[in-house]
């Protein structure tokens, strides 16, 4: 870390998001302009100099030289996260890492890996691992008029209310692991602002050729499904458990496989009415 500290830093920022204080510094002027759009929704500039995690972005050396690779480097504290010629890849690594760090460290919110939409003043929550089809289902729900809250995290407060975590939807083309970002506005969707009580929690996964079929789960089993997708359960088990129970007390849980998103989405909204 001392070696990093000795470098010349052109600009930096300390910010807080959901109770977590993070810093970012860069060796190249103008880098912050590209970093700011990547910060978590609702971030605020922090007056505190002390941060819980410090990211250091060393821009590629612009000097000419035959056979010289111009690499951009990203560190989180003194751990190197990325070493790329492509700055965009480094910025993506920064976004992924610090979002996950905030999700795991936040004392204010419990982050559940889930898609969330608003429908008739209630949240429809879709917890699930990668490739379960959350984003596709969220997109379909938006097409049917639901309000966008997130395709990545459901944020749960101490009263069990679900808060938005609005960032572009990361949509994967069929068979690819690469995501392309689409803003909800580009999809014609409205964006949620107010926290909502969870109405329906849907545990589902895409299975080709399957018809939509969901059965009810008990509140306890539903809470367990939320636990299995909670980012900070190992680090903050008591706080996480209490918040999940607040969600579970008032929500209806259903689980089952789905085929095409259009069929499932219509049924989910019908159930949530």
């Amino acid at each position, binding site marked *: 870390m001392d070696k990093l500290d000795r470098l010349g830093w052109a600009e930096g920022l300390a910010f807080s998001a959901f109770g977590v204080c993070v810093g970012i510094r860069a060796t190249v002027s103008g880098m912050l302009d590209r970093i700011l759009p990547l910060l978590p929704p609702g971030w605020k500039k922090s007056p505190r100099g002390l941060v819980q995690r410090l990211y250091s972005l060393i821009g590629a050396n612009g000097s000419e030289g035959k056979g010289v690779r111009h690499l951009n480097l990203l560190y989180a504290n003194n751990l190197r996260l990325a070493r790329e010629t492509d700055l965009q890849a480094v910025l993506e690594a920064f976004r992924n890492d610090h979002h996950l760090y905030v999700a795991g460290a936040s004392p204010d919110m419990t982050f559940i890996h889930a898609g969330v939409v608003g429908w008739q003043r209630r949240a429809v929550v879709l917890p699930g691992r990668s490739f379960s089809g959350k984003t596709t289902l969220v997109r379909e729900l938006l097409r049917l008029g639901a309000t966008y809250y997130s395709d990545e995290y459901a944020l749960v407060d101490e009263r069990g209310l679900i808060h938005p975590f609005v960032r572009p939807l990361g949509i994967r083309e069929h068979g690819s692991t690469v995501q392309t970002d689409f803003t909800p506005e580009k999809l014609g969707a409205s964006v949620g602002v107010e926290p909502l009580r969870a109405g329906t929690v849907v545990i589902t996964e895409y299975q080709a050729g399957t018809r939509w079929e969901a059965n009810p789960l008990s509140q306890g089993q539903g809470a367990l499904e939320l*636990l*299995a997708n909670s980012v900070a359960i190992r680090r903050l088990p008591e706080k996480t458990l209490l918040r999940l*129970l607040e969600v579970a007390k008032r929500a209806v849980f259903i689980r089952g496989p789905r085929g095409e998103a259009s069929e499932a989405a219509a049924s989910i909204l019908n159930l949530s009415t």
Partner: protein
Amino acid sequence: MKKLEFPQGRMDCLSRELGAEVLIYDLQRDEGHCLNYKAAAVWRLCDGKRTPRQIAAELSRQFSTAVGEQIVRLALGQLWDAHLLVEREVSVETPSRRVAMQRIGIAAAIALPLITSMAAPTPAQAASCLHNLAPCTSNLQCCSNICSPVLNKCIGG
């Protein structure tokens, strides 16, 4: 078959009631468990002083209906398998759930004790995975589950 003479529930787990169910988080194993009302009722009576027969008698009183020792032993077997009982060096003997269902009939099976268990994820496991060639620092971050230690990138997917 398993046999537990004076079963005792572990006190070092987090537990919370949710209606008639109980949610338990095992801090040692990072596992979550949901006990339905019958399993929860048995678990609450596992104080290290009651035999399964005594537990059955107490449950019969609580539910105002006969609860057989076999049902209690079924619950104890599930609690044991879920590591929710204090482990002692005793031989264990309990009926399987399938055997119990055969004996009491499918219709009554919904009244059987049931424990659902899930592993708690690490933060990387709970988050969206990274595509091939994305920068990474651990295997768990990658959709392929392979982070090249040389390239520090996800590979193999």
